[in-house]
């Protein structure tokens, strides 16, 4: 693809963190409003696609924390482990909740959020990596 679109490249420098921020926001609000791990993860994939199209697939892959494969594996592992605390009170994947007082507000933390984070990372790592590699097929090698 055309790699000399200067405006797009500049825009991506700004847009990439914004999209990622939006994806995390979607992840966090998911339990009570539209959103969640999968949608958040797919939004992050959109950021990766944008980076791959405007800069290079390698640059997009490098921006995946830990690399695509490790990111996906970490997601699956986090989701797997998030069910373990539930064993203490009942069955596997019985989710636990706690409220952290922060002074000005209070934060609800839970193993559900951990599970959704796992979904988010697995989707981002797998599909982000897949898209970036697929886009890489059409690039000329540097």
């Amino acid at each position, binding site marked *: 693809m055309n790699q000399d679109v200067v405006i797009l490249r500049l825009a991506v420098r700004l847009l990439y963190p914004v999209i990622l921020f939006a994806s995390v926001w979607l992840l966090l609000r998911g339990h009570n409003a539209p959103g969640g791990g999968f949608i958040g993860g797919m939004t992050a994939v959109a950021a990766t696609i944008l980076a791959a*199209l405007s800069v290079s697939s390698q640059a997009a892959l490098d921006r995946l924390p830990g690399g695509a494969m490790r990111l996906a594996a970490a*997601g699956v592992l986090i989701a797997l482990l998030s069910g373990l605390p539930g064993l203490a009170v009942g069955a596997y994947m019985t989710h636990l909740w706690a409220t952290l007082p922060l002074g000005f507000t209070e934060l609800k933390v*839970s193993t*559900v959020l951990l599970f959704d984070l796992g979904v988010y990372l697995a989707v981002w790592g*797998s599909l982000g990596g897949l898209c970036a*590699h697929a886009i890489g*097929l059409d690039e000329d090698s540097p």
Partner: protein
Amino acid sequence: MAHDEPQAAHGTSRLGWLALVPAAVLLLAWWATAGGDRVLVAAWPWIPSLGISLAFRIDGLALQFILLIAGIGTLVFVYAAGYMAGVKQRLRLFGALIAFMLAMLGTVSADNLLLLFVFWEMTSLTSFLLVGFKHEKAAARRSAQQALMVTAGGGLVMLAGFILLGAIAGTYSISGLVATAPNWLDHPALPLALGCVLVGAFSKSAQIPFHFWLPNAMAAPTPVSAYLHSATMVKLGVYLLARLDPAFHDLELWQWLLVGFGGLTAAWSMLLALRERDLKRILAWSTVSALGTLTMLIGLPGAVAPGAMAAFLLAHALYKAPLFFVAGNVDHCAGSRSIDDLGGLATRMPWTAAAAAIAAVSMAGLPFSLGYFAKDLIDIARAEGGVFVWAGYASLMVGAISVAVAAVAAVRIFWHRNGRPVPMQIHEAGWAMRLPPLLVACVGLAFGLHPEWLAPLLDHSAIAMGGALPSTVLGVGTIGLDGLTGVAATLGAGLVIYLGWDRLHRMLERGFPLIDRVGMVAHYERLLNAIPALASWSTRWLQGGRTSGYTLIAAGGMGLGLGAAVLLALPPVVLPTTDLPIGTAPALAAITLGAIAALVARTSLLLLLASGLVGFGSAGLFLFVGAPDLAFTQFTVEVAFIVILVAVLLRTGASRQTTAGPRRAPREMIRAAIALGGGGLATWMVLAGLSGPDNRVLADYFGANAVPEAQGRNVVNVILVDFRAVDTFGEIAVVAAAFLAVLPLLLALKRKKETPR
């Protein structure tokens, strides 16, 4: 037949101390069951919904097997410590032996068919490791694979039989099965279930037509052969038959199959023994023959047969295991197992020769030996069961060749001079290898002189099989004139065979190539070669590399299935009357436009964009009918989908490709028909689903419980991450695995592009 292990005849591995494990099992089993007077029962639930429990039951029959497994096991461990001394990876052998022994103990004490199956297949797997121990040799690998294919494959057929049997009887409990048998013996599906179970038992116990794997498994190290292939594992099939016999022994089919196949195996495999020159293989064929005799005894009606079976089982283990040990010693010390190379070893290996002689007396069935005691019982059982005349001659032949085999193992290689000097460097084996054969053989000798010592054990075992040990055969001095005549006839015939062994061998070698061509080994090879042939054939036909072909198969298959379901049910369809919000109009327009564009598009890229329009239209529709989560998902997935496909299309150059050929070609029409049929069916199914009564149980449940139970107001997300979290976990695992699978393909495509052609 050259010996290929390091010569460390006098070393002993410290791993031999592991023999204390089976020894402890032996004492524990004897003490816990009070010598068989007590039946031990224990059960824990495992999968109660399927009626599978961890149920164990140790009665007389199980105890006899446990004593054999642990008793012979103890000496096998001691023997292996000498035999494997200095061999690399001997730790692995001992580990596999322990695992095998535990699996064996589990199999014979399980009281649930499916639990028994699990242990059964564990013995197959561990025996695969043990037979293939010398894995750097191709012959060992092939033998291990053959043993696994035959026994584990037979085990799978047996599982089908078990499930069928469980369905017929309504229980998987073996004791329950035996207790309720009269209620369901006339079930029409019972012969099928029995057939499947027999395939499993026959394959494990090397009955015709599965007999060929056992002699080939002699590629295993000798301790393994002595343990698995003479004393324990191959008797599991016999054990299963004996276990189930009380339930089925009145069935004529059961009797005929067991007596027929058992008798045939006993006779045929003895003939095959005459063909061999390898001492271990000769012994292996005689083991197959003994297994056939055991199978036949189980099938015989009458009250004596179970006692005879128990006695012969024990006698066989007590003479065959030492003979295998002897073969191992000879192999180890003289460097060969071929009876052509061996002779006059008695002066160099006196201990081994003594063990061989004692064991051979029992095998030949000479008076005052355990073998005689067992044969006596077998004759009574046979007379009582009324076996046909030819079986009498067959048993004479089996007995005679047994005598000849015993003479070959004990006399020919040790005392026969062969006209050649015995090499000076041959020496006796170490103590760890000298003692086990002598000890087992002497135990057999003691029991032969005092069969009354065995009476309680054999009696308990026979009672568990629904019979009893006749009191008349116990004690010394019961040898009547009939018995002596029989022994004399067998001995005489055996002597003739022994003297003419080489001549018989040459005769058989001329005749057998004809049989080999149609024999079971040839069939097995053919089957094995057919598997890759079938795979490449189906790959050629199903996966020709054309995407349109794959789509046709997938869509056509789904259409056929759905069509059949719809035609069978013919669900009523009521057109829905819901009013759609006006905002959905642009979305519906986009879907329609995309669909029409897809129909007229001539290039792949255009086709892709058109289908993308359909996807975005659907996402918009979701947004307006109250499914924002679904809409979000659809939007993001659609973006990723189009980007990936465009990238791949550009890469492969398919983007510029137009669909070839005139539009009216018949192929085009077929595709149109499939598309219309599939789309129509799917629409019908959806409409039919909507027309039914509105079931809101799940919706109400999730709606009511999302906040109190899972503290979330987004019900879709709550279902995904909480109520159905394990499903979701499975899905992300699949996504990650799919990525791992696709990645190498993408990298290969990339590499192909970078390397100049």
